[in-house]
């Protein structure tokens, strides 16, 4: 009897996730889609965002988010995976037992606090070392977001690497592979799906992060052009929603456009997740084919 109840409860919990996502998407669509009728499309894809005068170009915001997130990925992926590999494969037991909890603690720091530190310390470091006019740039945001994403990546990727059976490594070493070859050609590919999940979770945290970014990127809505954009101020989609949602009157054009930005964010993270899971799926298929 109790088992029946528990199974039902678990099933409901599982399906409720789908229900919530569905409800959120319906709500976003309902609040955001009127913007497509109210603002002509050429205006939406223009390069000027100044909502209080009716300029609703989304390009600077989408570009800003992409630049900051790409920058964060370039920092967080190598550092995060490097740390995870070191912890799982190379570090002595005592170092691992000391470092892992510390890194997880870092992951629990409130991002507002990191943003505050970034605003007071990181901005002047970035400005002086790179000799820029201002330290409030996309790069500063990327550095901070990279820092925020690294603990997530390390923690999940290390678990995935740890779950690879010992026999895989022993087989690799027995065949005469060096330690590095074993890590790169055996352990890492075997933990591929977990590692990819780690990267996705980390970057998911980065693209959705708001407060820290808002405090250090300068929030200037400029359309990024080329990789140099990393050294200029940028305005992300999340920061725009956070900064402007409080002021808009319910049901105004500006309000609808902010929800439209929410839809764009939702679609981007959906696309990223779909791409990641199809990658994992394809890799698993290939592994099965080779083994059979």
């Amino acid at each position, binding site marked *: 009897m109790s088992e029946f109840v528990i199974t039902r409860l678990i099933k409901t919990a599982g399906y409720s996730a789908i229900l919530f996502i569905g409800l959120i998407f319906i709500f976003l669509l309902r609040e955001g889609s009127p913007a497509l009728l109210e603002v002509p499309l050429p205006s939406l894809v223009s390069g000027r965002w100044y*909502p209080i005068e009716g300029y609703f170009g989304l390009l600077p915001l989408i570009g800003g988010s992409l630049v900051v997130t790409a920058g964060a990925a370039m920092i967080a992926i190598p550092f995060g995976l490097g740390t995870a590999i070191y912890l799982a494969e190379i570090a002595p037991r005592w170092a691992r037992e000391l470092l892992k909890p510390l890194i997880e603690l870092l992951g629990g720091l409130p991002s507002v606090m990191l943003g505050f530190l970034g605003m007071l310390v990181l901005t*002047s470091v970035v400005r002086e070392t790179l000799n820029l006019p201002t330290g409030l740039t996309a790069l500063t945001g990327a550095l901070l977001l990279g820092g925020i994403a690294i603990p997530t990546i390390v923690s999940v990727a290390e678990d995935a690497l740890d779950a690879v059976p010992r026999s895989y490594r022993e087989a690799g070493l027995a065949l005469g592979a060096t330690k590095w070859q074993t890590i790169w050609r055996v352990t890492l590919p075997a933990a591929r799906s977990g590692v990819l999940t780690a990267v996705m979770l980390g970057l998911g945290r980065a693209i959705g992060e708001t407060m820290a970014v808002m405090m250090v990127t300068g929030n*200037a809505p*400029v359309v990024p052009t080329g990789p140099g954009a990393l050294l200029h101020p940028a305005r992300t989609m999340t920061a725009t929603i956070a900064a*402007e949602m*409080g002021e808009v*009157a*319910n049901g105004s054009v500006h309000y609808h456009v902010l929800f439209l930005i929410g839809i764009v964010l939702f679609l981007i993270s959906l696309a990223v997740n779909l791409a990641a899971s199809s990658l994992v799926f394809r890799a698993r298929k290939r592994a099965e084919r080779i083994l059979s």
Partner: protein
Amino acid sequence: MHRPLRAHLALLLTALALVGCWGPSANGSQPTLIASTTIENKGSDTMVNLALAWAESYQVSHPDVRISVTGGGSGTGIAALINRTAVIANASRKIKPEEKSEAIANGVDPMELVVARDAIAIIVNTNNTVDHLTIDQLSEIYSGVINNWAEVGGRDGLIVRLSRETNSGTHVYFLEQVIRHGDSQDTTLFAPETLLLPSSEGISAEIRQNPNAIGYDGLGYVTPDLKVVAVARDASGPFELPSAATVESGSYPLSRDLYMYTAGEPAGQTAAYLQWILGPDAQAIVTSLGFVPLQP
């Protein structure tokens, strides 16, 4: 054997915690609930310190009134008034016609009260050699015509323009009175490269460390480690620094009224509070915080 025991223990603890929550609130909070009125006061970040100081002082002499003050920007406060989540909206600018019609459509008739005056100070880093600017120069700097400090008599260096976010009344004031010279037909905008910072503190922090930055803020927010630039209406001068005296005499060009809005004619405790704000005690607080009091 272990598991059910633990489950029971958890249940017991939860139950205890729930009882614990119920106990005191049932006995304790009822009398205070009856005695106090809460006034929700929200809006302008420029005014938030002033509103807090007023609220604290007023609550000392009127223990039956609770005033909760939050910032967020003038637009945020007026939106809260329209959505009926605030009783008093603080605004460092006049309510816009669109906001007013929206309020009336929502059954709220906003009543305006001037509660203090403020000067907008133009601030730069203490190492900046520029010490005076005209409104025209400020307009050209912020609209992106002038890009280098050398063009306004300073050292060579790209100008980093700082501004508050668009929900700030100070932002709107600056756009209308400085960038557009008060001309309602003018459609000049802030240069897109202008950094929009979410707080006054963000502006101060960046100017303290960046020798190329320029920003603007309410006089009450200017600290001694920032340099205030003297401003004149045109090149013939006189260039004046913002202060209570220059605002009152009208010689400092960038001054404005600070407002409180209520939904309809204020009544009861709210009316008494607003009456007190116009009185000498509250206006003395205005002076002590670096704002400009209303003329008696």
